[in-house]
């Protein structure tokens, strides 16, 4: 696997609390992504980043924000967690070297978040 780690790996929190998930990659990849995976919905893109301080929304971005202050780190924040945000969250990265998007994505191990 590419050097992508996520922390924490598991978290239980209460409704209304802020939560930050961290993704760290050591591949110097340009692009980074946050997905959530839920039964019946597959993998859905929350936010992505195409460079330091450059981010954009995915298909399920409501209730989430992201920040990328360094190439290697991409943070996902749930401003006020809700039970509907209980899910498994995956971070991914890709080199972005090929402008035609012939780029595979490398995934982290996932964070299992439970909002009570």
């Amino acid at each position, binding site marked *: *696997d590419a050097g992508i780690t996520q922390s924490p790996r598991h978290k239980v929190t209460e409704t209304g609390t802020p939560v930050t998930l961290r993704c760290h990659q050591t591949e110097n990849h340009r692009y980074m992504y946050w997905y959530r995976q839920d039964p019946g919905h*597959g993998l859905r893109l929350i936010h992505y980043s195409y460079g330091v301080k450059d981010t954009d929304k995915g298909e399920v971005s409501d209730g989430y924000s992201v920040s990328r202050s360094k190439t290697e780190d991409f943070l996902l924040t749930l401003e006020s967690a809700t039970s509907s945000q209980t899910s498994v969250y995956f971070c991914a990265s890709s080199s*972005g070297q090929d402008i035609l*998007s012939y780029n595979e994505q490398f995934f982290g191990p996932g964070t299992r978040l439970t909002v009570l």
Partner: protein
Amino acid sequence: SQQGEEDPQALSIQEGENATMNCSYKTSINNLQWYRQNSGRGLVHLILIRSNEREKHSGRLRVTLDTSKKSSSLLITASRAADTASYFCATPLSSNTGKLIFGQGTTLQVKP
């Protein structure tokens, strides 16, 4: 809406048999990718096929792409218990963002 949709949703076979999974997509693409996810793990890239390719091989994997039908298939030959996993196809959302749209996956169980 999903760009890629896999069929079947679940597949159970005996070790040594071949497994075929299909993916259909809706819009024009320049490549299609297949990923594997073992239980409790992240996705792992298996193979990428470009729109000008009809077939590609990697070990026991064979991927075909039919752009006229907007469909792809993943064939795993001589399956092993270790092939038990979920398999996802993914297509680019647009040509220059690196974003992919994933299907909901096919869950493959290979019985020893």
